[in-house]
């Protein structure tokens, strides 16, 4: 896992409680989780001042609430927890690829918008963003390129201009169920790619 992070990969996991957060840790501790090695001083001692500064900076940038770095993450709203995860992943040094899996699941509308904006900003900075989602409108709005998977295979790839069509969501939905290319069973998953 460490090697992947060193290679510039960042990852917003599908289930933030299971994989992304230590719920009993404070906001600042969760904000350095996975980057704890970047915040040590001599003898492997954590540099609390820097951890605190980083937390205050990210809380401000991403409007995480409550804005108290020592607040326990367990008591936060789902939207703010997710903003925390996105903030942390985007703050990785040497970031080049960001994988977001269902980044807006169970998140309130305000936070959804903030998270979307951040993903677009990351793309504009030259980060390759891979978004996996079951939210078709989210995929349409954000993607530069959209690949539809059915039974582990890419059945179609749509570009930006194709995604503008009115009935595109119905088509994608149909392809996900296998109905579009002529097959007719099982569930599927979509993948969108915002590569640049």
């Amino acid at each position, binding site marked *: 896992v460490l090697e992947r992070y060193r290679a510039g990969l960042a990852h917003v996991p599908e289930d933030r409680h299971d994989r*992304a*957060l230590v719920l009993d840790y404070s906001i600042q501790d969760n904000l350095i*989780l996975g980057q704890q090695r970047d915040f040590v001083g001599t003898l*492997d001692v*954590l540099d609390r001042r820097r951890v605190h500064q980083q937390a205050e900076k990210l809380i401000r940038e991403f409007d995480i609430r409550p804005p108290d770095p020592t607040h326990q993450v367990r008591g936060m709203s789902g939207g703010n927890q997710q903003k925390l995860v996105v903030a942390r992943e985007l703050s990785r040094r040497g970031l080049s690829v960001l994988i977001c899996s269902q980044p807006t699941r169970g998140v309130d509308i305000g936070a959804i918008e903030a998270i979307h904006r951040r993903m677009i900003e990351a793309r504009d900075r030259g980060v390759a963003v891979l978004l996996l989602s079951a939210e078709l409108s989210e995929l349409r709005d954000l993607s530069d390129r959209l690949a539809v998977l059915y039974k582990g295979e890419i059945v179609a790839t749509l570009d930006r201009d194709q995604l503008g069509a009115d009935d595109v969501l119905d088509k994608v939905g149909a392809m996900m169920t296998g109905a579009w290319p002529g097959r007719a069973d099982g569930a599927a998953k979509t993948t969108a790619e915002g590569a640049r």
Partner: protein
Amino acid sequence: MKREALTIGAALVIAALAGSVLIWFVGQSPLEVYGMMLSRTWGTSYGFGEVLFRATPLILTGLSVSVAFKVGLFNIGAEGQLAAGSFVTALCGAVLPASLPWPLAVALCVLAGMIAGAGLGGLAGVLKVRYGAHEVINTIMLNFVASALILWAGNAHFFVRDTHTRTISDNATLPALGLAGSHANTSLLLAIGLAAAVAYFFNRTRRGFEWRAVGLSPRAAQNAGVRIGGVIIGAMVVSGALAGAVGANYVLGYKHYYERGIGGGVGVMGIAVALLGRNHPAGIIAAALLLGTLAHGGLAVAELVPKEIFYILQAVIILAVACASVYLGRRARASGAQA
């Protein structure tokens, strides 16, 4: 933090009330018995010294259990780890040349004991990580292995009289604290020092940060680049080493030799200490003092009530605190669930 202390305090009061009923049942006045227990433990310097002497190994085994707890492991093996540690400490003390300066001699003996305990704990950790054997089973079984191995090795090679090893050389002994001839000795300082070290490790260092994360949420820790297997083995090594340091109290500070059964039961009581102290080093010191008070207090009031009453009281305290812990855990989750 404050609610924790209050809840634990309430549990202790309930336990004391239950103890009162028992004392009343054997026909004595609870107030008189508790009063006598306090005056004969904390009231005299000898009694206080005995409390400290009994608390010292409990601090160490409590820390041992708590370090394992923090990363989500249950070390039941402090009993065997402290036996192995004490045995090796005694052997080391017996073979050291008398010309060695004392700080070096003491340090070597303590270190030898800690390494022995660490080896036993680490073995349980490796068995878990490598073969998936549960650490509870591993540590219990290694307790038997350790005690049988010590008995065999002692009988075959080292026991000079009955089940004693040779007396350690003078330069390896730890001086008494000088509390009216009580057995309290300077290993208490070692125990407090180790407690501070454990607190510092968990709160301030990068590894402590990762270890706590493993205990609270192993999958998130793994996602954060922590190697869980390594942490498990490391925690068992540290846990074993802390239990192995118990030899400093009994061997270097008190008997000056290893005797079969030395420190028996202290390993198991370490679980209670860790529970009572909520895995916090300062809490562990307080819990060790409390249980040390009861252990010596039970003897001190033996003329009024059978000392078994105090064993029961210890058990009732542990049960009360265990219930309080569950209650606290539920409260913590409930306050988080509103999100």
